[in-house]
């Protein structure tokens, strides 16, 4: 099993690497297009700001590479958002793999102190679809840290409730993505990563 984590100017790569190691897999961390193209599975992590990260992906042509991939790809957190059509964060066009729009959480008036932003902590996932989930994961808690979210849409593969329901995961063809951090979500997250590895 040859798993590549795409190396680029976004944090959190180390945590994903360690999570895979705990599952007995040694990932390769690289920005080399050939290595990414020929991998069995590709992970596209990301923590950071959408528009500057998109600029970087365009400069390095990683944007074209990612959309052309045929093997299973898993985007995590900002990775999910960048795989969508457009993000309000820095008002940027993104990779357009998923049709969903990325918006900022806006608490209802008077609820600013109830629905704090960022949405930070453990929340439950429901309405699970796609091969990275299985019935045992329904309604389980996973770890989120984000201020922007992908709306519910045709590619929603898991839903979570905050200021309103949003896409906790997306899936289309060989592209999978989670808004939460499976690498930080305890045994539940480890199961999701294991399911991805075994796709």
């Amino acid at each position: 099993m040859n798993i590549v984590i795409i190396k680029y100017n976004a944090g959190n790569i180390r945590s994903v690497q360690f999570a895979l190691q705990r599952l007995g897999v040694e990932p390769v961390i690289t920005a080399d297009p050939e290595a990414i193209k020929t991998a069995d599975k590709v992970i596209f992590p990301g923590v950071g700001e959408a528009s500057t990260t998109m600029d970087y992906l365009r400069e390095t042509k990683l944007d074209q590479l990612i959309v052309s991939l045929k093997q299973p790809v898993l985007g995590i957190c900002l990775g999910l958002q960048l795989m969508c059509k457009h993000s309000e964060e820095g008002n940027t066009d993104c990779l357009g793999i998923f049709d969903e729009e990325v918006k900022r959480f806006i608490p209802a008036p008077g609820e600013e102190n109830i629905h704090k932003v960022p949405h930070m902590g453990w929340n439950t996932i429901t309405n699970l679809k796609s091969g990275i989930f299985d019935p045992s994961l329904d309604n389980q808690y996973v770890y989120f840290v984000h201020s922007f979210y992908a709306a519910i849409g045709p590619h929603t593969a898991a839903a979570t409730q905050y200021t309103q329901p949003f896409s906790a995961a997306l899936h289309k063809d060989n592209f999978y993505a989670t808004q939460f951090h499976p690498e930080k979500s305890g045994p539940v997250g480890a199961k999701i990563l294991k399911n991805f590895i075994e796709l």
Partner: protein
Amino acid sequence: MLAKRIIPCLDIKDGQTVKGVNFLDIKSVGDPVELGTLYAEQGADELVFLDITASHEKRKTLVELVQRIARHINIPFTVGGGVSELSDADALLAAGCDKLSINSAAVRNPQLIDQMAKGFGSQFVVTAIDAKYENGKWTVFVNGGRIATDKELFSWAKEAQERGAGEILFTSMNHDGVKTGFACEALAQLSESLSIPVIASGGAGNMEHFKDVFTKGKADAGLAASIFHFKEIAIPDLKKYLTDNNIPVRL
């Protein structure tokens, strides 16, 4: 529904976990990685590792420990006490920590919050505030509670939020280590004045104190050290108690 978080805090000195009473009189209570792993298995939602010697002795080398923690622990963790400039933050993030907590360094150089939020995102930046209630106001202290400043808790927390902090970790020095409950009144006021999450710290002595901090204190997370380290409260029991009291927690 977003769960309330239970966060054991591991104070680190010379690579060992310690817990002081009122910030002084330190006793060693074990290996941080071993303790952290145990807490994660028991259902802790997050961990905080604070190098309590760092700002006093200017020691910065947490990187190796952070990497060892990240390798073993599958829940989020925050590291504090070793960050006084952007390059420290960079090294600790690269080593695998999820959030950085800044305290004295942020008071001395508030722009550090802006720089870190811009460089790594607000979600990385926890602003920790140690404050003491004296003469009718909450005064902010630095250097592990040793030095009083001219800052006041509520306005400083608000400023930190505006500069880009993603969370506030408020420790009441009046309550810390004395186990008579959290500073619920001040916490509620703080939580209501902010739009970012508040982590309550200082004063946990029994399970009811956690119920109170999430209801009366309106905190998003409750942090404690000694009651967990000395096995006075087991995390699974605490979470069951909170669930029985209709407080959403991750089981």
